[in-house]
């Protein structure tokens, strides 16, 4: 299933956040979204997932979600959004409880996604006992449990420390290698975008507009941090963004 934004504009209380954005997220590929702070990346992702209604334009699903998908459009959030009062397994079970599944089916799905993310040993742990990286792995396991057609990931690594980020990036590459999931992946981090994205859409400052879409053909598995081609793409993108990032940084808010 593909996702498409069709000439979408959006404003919050008079402040225009997105202007006439048209964008496609093709199935089986990771579409990265980069842009300076406050340019509307998270808003765009909320529009894609139906958590927000666009002021103008439409968010469209093209094609049918795979059979058995419990929640076709599934988020992975920056700050994990785990319920602190549920264990790891309980957090995953949460998203199954409103579906007509037998207890055994639920347990099976939970066990399956825990195994696929190598979290089986942590099923009974509380979120507070886990490091940030492990928490995000739990959130990914929870997303997988809903058998999504598209994963909508809002800076999934930016709350993690640099070393954990590296580890999780490797995990995501490996996961994509096996499951070829579809994703829209928002990030500030150009290294991440260049490492994980098949397509990279660059947004301008607020109001966010698509400035450029880069395609990277190197297979995910073969991308090395020191690959000169990738380093060059990253440098290009940074040139595109640097001025805008600096402007966004200097902005006063809530004055």
């Amino acid at each position, binding site marked *: 299933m593909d996702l498409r934004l069709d000439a979408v504009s959006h404003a919050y209380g008079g402040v225009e956040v997105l202007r006439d954005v048209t964008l496609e997220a093709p199935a089986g590929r990771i579409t990265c979204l980069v842009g300076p702070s406050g340019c509307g990346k998270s808003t765009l992702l909320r529009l894609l997932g139906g958590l927000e209604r666009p002021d103008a334009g439409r968010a469209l699903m093209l094609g*049918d979600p*795979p059979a058995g998908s419990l929640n076709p459009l599934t988020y992975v959030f920056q700050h994990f959004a785990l319920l602190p009062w549920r264990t790891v397994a309980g957090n995953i079970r949460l998203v199954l409880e409103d579906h007509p599944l037998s207890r055994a089916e639920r347990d099976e799905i939970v066990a399956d996604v825990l195994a696929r993310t190598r979290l089986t040993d942590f099923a009974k742990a509380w979120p507070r006992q886990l490091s940030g990286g492990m928490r995000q792995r739990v959130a990914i396991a929870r997303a997988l449990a809903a058998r999504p057609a598209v994963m909508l990931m809002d800076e999934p690594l930016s709350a993690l420390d640099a070393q954990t980020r590296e580890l999780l990036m490797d995990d995501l590459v490996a996961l994509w290698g096996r499951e*070829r999931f579809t994703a829209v992946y928002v990030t500030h981090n150009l290294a991440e975008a260049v490492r994980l994205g098949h397509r990279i859409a660059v947004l301008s400052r607020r109001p966010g507009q698509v400035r450029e879409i880069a395609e990277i053909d190197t297979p995910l598995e073969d991308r090395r941090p020191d690959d000169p081609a990738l380093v060059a793409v990253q440098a290009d993108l940074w040139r595109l963004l640097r001025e805008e990032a600096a402007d966004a940084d200097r902005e006063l808010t809530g004055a």
Partner: protein
Amino acid sequence: MTDATLDAAPAAPASARTGAPAAGAPRPVPFRGGGFQPSGRAWAGPLLFVLLIGIWEWGSASGWITPLTLPRPSAVAAVFGELWASGRLWEHLGPSLGRLAVGSALGLAAGIGVGLMIGLFSLARAGLAPLVAALFPVPKIALLPLFVIWFGIDEASKYALIAFGVFTPTVVATYGGVDNVDRSLIRMGQSFGLSWRSIVLKIVLPGAAPAILSGMRVSLAIAIILLVAAEMLGAEHGVGAFVLTAGSLYDLESLFCGVAILSALGLAVSFLIGRLERRLLDWRG
């Protein structure tokens, strides 16, 4: 088994499979957000209020609310109008406001002082915190006879009673506030070699101020409640005395009028604290 990478997992029956060619027609993404942010509709509050009063007035007029059960709102309003016109309103409000002001000021000062000590010193915490906890559930009305002996039946006992009632919640709010001051700000102060006094005055106190102010909302509401108890003790004038007299004469109109005045006083105090908060805490934006 504990290798926490995702890659080597056996391929499971994942359904989010790749590249299925778009078959169905484009469908809009269904909306499922919004809600859980109650707000607005400022008209509903006054409306409900007017509606309630209206029903009540009508019930009293038509007789299914007997005057023994509830007074008629218009009669209550008439009592108020009479109090206002005759100037007796000020005769009662004046002393009450004075008692509230002095009593609360004493209680707040003592409470913030003790609360700070509990928040800053181990010895004070260990010694005083349990004592304050034990004092919290002591009903002040039960102690009225003692207050008479200790402080007499003039203003002193009224101040003392209100101050005592304000004291305990203020202590708890203050040391809770001090406990919640971001320790990293304190470490910052130490790392720049600030004196202990500077740290307390410039970091701990302002950091605890929001908690102290929101504690004041509760403790001043308690002060107003205690006004009635305080004016049990030989007060001739005062809103509390007015309410008590009305109660003992079973004069429901006056009783409700007095209670409404106290409630308005509570709302006024809460409004003033709101102003104070906006003033002192404008840095919160």
